[in-house]
């Protein structure tokens, strides 16, 4: 009995425990936040917890006894899920649509697990339902976000790549630049190094120079003493120089005048020193010299200037230069009064003699002529022959005397007479005509190349120019062998008329060409030819041309021929040659 009681008691306790457990389970089921449905083995809903009721919207009485097909209306899906659950031993979880009481379908995730008894027989299923609408929304959002992020990432990646490339390029270019810079700076460094070396060398040189300079300075001190002495000597030379000296600085101011020049000009150094040359023309004695040299101090060589009646100076200017830099000018005044006096006496003597000679020569000429003409009685052929020869000799003598007179007139500076504006061509033609006979006799091929256009008229002393041309033609014919050629041409170019006469004659020996225009010059080769001539023709010709402001020159080769040229300027004024006789 006791035992029965004990079991009873025990049973009672167990029952109480069991009830407690049932309450406990119910409570747990109802407070679970997930929906739980208990199903029979034929998928009929036998119980739902509170959360499930809230989710599906049905009260337990409305839904218990219904198949789950009532709330899950996607039939095909549901069948698959049932099949899986019947076969499987473990929990399966699937997504599907739940149709609650209000018919607004909800996306849910369901998990199903089989219910078994103590022997392990399937007696039904537990179904839990979780609303995953929000989750899905979040998931969708998340996916979108992920996509955006992915997109952003891609964009960023591209940007990053671009940027990276840019940076890389930048880096490369920088590297290049850096390389260049490096190279440059290496070069600079090298240059600097070289400069430094050069500088060092220079410094060494300077040091050496300094030493040399010190040595030199010692020498210079000695030299200075010598120079001082030398300067004193030079000054003494200048002071006591027989010629007058004027030194002008580079501004043409008078920087020195020696005592001799003071005497010449009758001035005192202190009155004129440091004054510009132009101002000095206010002194009547200096004026002729200033006039000669001009304000720029032109090159003058041995030009005569009459200062007073009893003083003629020969003026020369010498530019003073040092290493091509002009330092000034030296004017040298040489007293030629005595020479001029002697020269004048000589000229006067020659002039007088020539005049005196002309009278008997005329008498001889006229007598011979009358004899030859038979005015003084008949003469034999032999007598006539001798008289002819004598007459010719006399004519030569007359020519010489006339030449000598021309020379004296040239030397006295009274030669040209009244230039008139005239044509040159007829003068040349006239001179040629007067040589026709000789040309014919020597069978010389003579040509006169006349100008193509009419030449401008020119102011000249017709007689003198004719004489000048005559002399040149005479020489050309005289010194050209028979059958030779003489060409005269007349041209106008650049304001001058150029006359030239080319012959195929004996030519002038090179060593004697410098003396061609001097008085009484006759070349060695023509002396041997024993032709007549006194060596005055070219001297006279040159003086005539130069008195007209023209130029005369020649080209010659011995044995080949000579060409003489002269030019006359169309506009030349030559008043100074028209002095009173």
């Amino acid at each position: 009995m006791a035992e029965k009681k004990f079991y009873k008691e025990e049973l009672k306790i167990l029952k109480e425990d069991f009830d407690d457990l049932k309450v406990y389970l119910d409570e747990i089921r109802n407070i679970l936040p997930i929906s739980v449905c208990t199903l029979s083995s034929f998928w009929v809903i036998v119980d739902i917890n509170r959360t499930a009721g809230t989710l599906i919207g049905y009260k337990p009485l409305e839904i218990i006894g219904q198949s789950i097909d009532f709330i899950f209306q996607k039939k095909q899906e549901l069948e698959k899920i049932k099949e899986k659950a019947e076969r499987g031993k473990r929990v399966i979880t699937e997504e599907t649509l739940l149709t609650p009481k209000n018919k607004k379908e909800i996306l849910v995730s369901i998990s199903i697990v089989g219910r078994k008894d103590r022997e392990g027989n399937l007696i039904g299923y537990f179904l839990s339902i979780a609303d995953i609408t929000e989750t899905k929304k979040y998931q969708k959002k998340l996916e979108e976000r992920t996509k955006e992020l992915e997109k952003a990432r891609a964009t960023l990646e591209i940007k990053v790549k671009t940027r990276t490339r840019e940076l890389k390029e930048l880096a490369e270019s920088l590297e290049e630049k850096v390389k260049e810079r490096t190279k440059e700076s290496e070069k600079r460094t090298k240059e600097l190094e070289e400069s430094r070396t050069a500088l060092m060398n220079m410094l060494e040189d300077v040091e050496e120079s300094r030493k040399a300079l010190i040595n030199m300075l010692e020498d210079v001190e000695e030299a200075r003493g010598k120079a001082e002495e030398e300067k004193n000597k030079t000054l003494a030379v200048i002071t006591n120089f027989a010629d007058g000296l004027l030194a002008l600085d580079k501004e043409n101011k008078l920087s020195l005048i020696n005592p001799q020049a003071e005497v010449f000009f009758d001035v005192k150094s202190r009155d004129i020193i440091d004054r510009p040359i132009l101002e000095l023309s206010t002194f009547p004695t200096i004026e002729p010299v200033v006039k000669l040299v001009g304000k720029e101090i032109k090159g003058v060589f041995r030009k005569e200037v009459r200062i007073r009646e009893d003083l003629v100076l020969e003026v020369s200017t010498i530019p003073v230069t040092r290493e091509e830099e002009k330092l000034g000018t030296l004017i040298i005044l040489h007293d030629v009064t005595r020479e001029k006096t002697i020269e004048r006496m000589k000229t006067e003597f020659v002039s007088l003699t020539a005049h005196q000679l002309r009278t008997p020569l005329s008498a001889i000429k006229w007598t011979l002529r009358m004899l030859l003409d038979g005015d003084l009685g008949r003469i034999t052929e032999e007598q006539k022959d001798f008289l002819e020869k004598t007459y010719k000799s006399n004519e030569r003598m007359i020519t010489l005397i006339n030449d000598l007179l021309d020379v004296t007139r040239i030397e006295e500076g009274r030669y040209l007479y009244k230039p008139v504006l005239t044509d040159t061509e007829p003068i040349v033609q006239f001179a040629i005509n007067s040589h026709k006979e000789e040309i014919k006799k020597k069978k010389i091929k003579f040509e006169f190349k006349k100008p193509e256009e009419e030449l401008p008229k020119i102011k000249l002393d017709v007689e003198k120019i004719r004489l000048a041309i005559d002399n040149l033609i005479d020489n050309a014919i005289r010194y050209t062998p028979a059958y030779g050629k003489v060409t005269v041409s007349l041209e106008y170019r650049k304001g001058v008329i150029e006359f030239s006469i080319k012959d195929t004659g004996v030519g002038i020996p090179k060593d004697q060409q410098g003396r061609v225009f001097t008085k009484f010059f006759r070349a060695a080769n023509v002396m041997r030819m024993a032709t007549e001539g006194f060596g005055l023709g070219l001297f006279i010709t040159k003086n005539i041309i130069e008195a007209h402001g023209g130029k005369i020159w020649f080209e010659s080769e011995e044995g080949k021929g000579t060409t003489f040229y002269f030019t006359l300027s169309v506009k030349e004024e030559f008043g100074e040659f028209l002095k009173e006789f």
Partner: protein
Amino acid sequence: MAKKILLVEDEEIMINLLQKKLIREGYEISVARNGEEGLKAMREVKPDLILLDIIMPKMGGFEVMEEMGKDKNLKDIPVIVISNSGQPVEIDKAQKLGAKDWLIKTEFDPQEVIDKVVKQIGK
């Protein structure tokens, strides 16, 4: 009637030569040996032409012409100058003083003198 020519010249041989030549040509010749004589002679003779030298003792040819220019009886007598010299200035001067012609002794022959005389006064 023969034309009268006065020859004023100091050189004897020239006088002889010219005289001979001119007489042969049919002229009547009188001679003066210097300028002074020349002026005196031309007043007496009243020649048709005067041949006048320039350089002469006592009075030269130019002075003779100057004097002639002052005398209305003499100033119209033609003058031919015969001279040793023949510078253009001299010729100019002679022309201004009224000389009709000029000849230089060394450049002319006696015959040419005759030609010039004939040109002035005819035969």
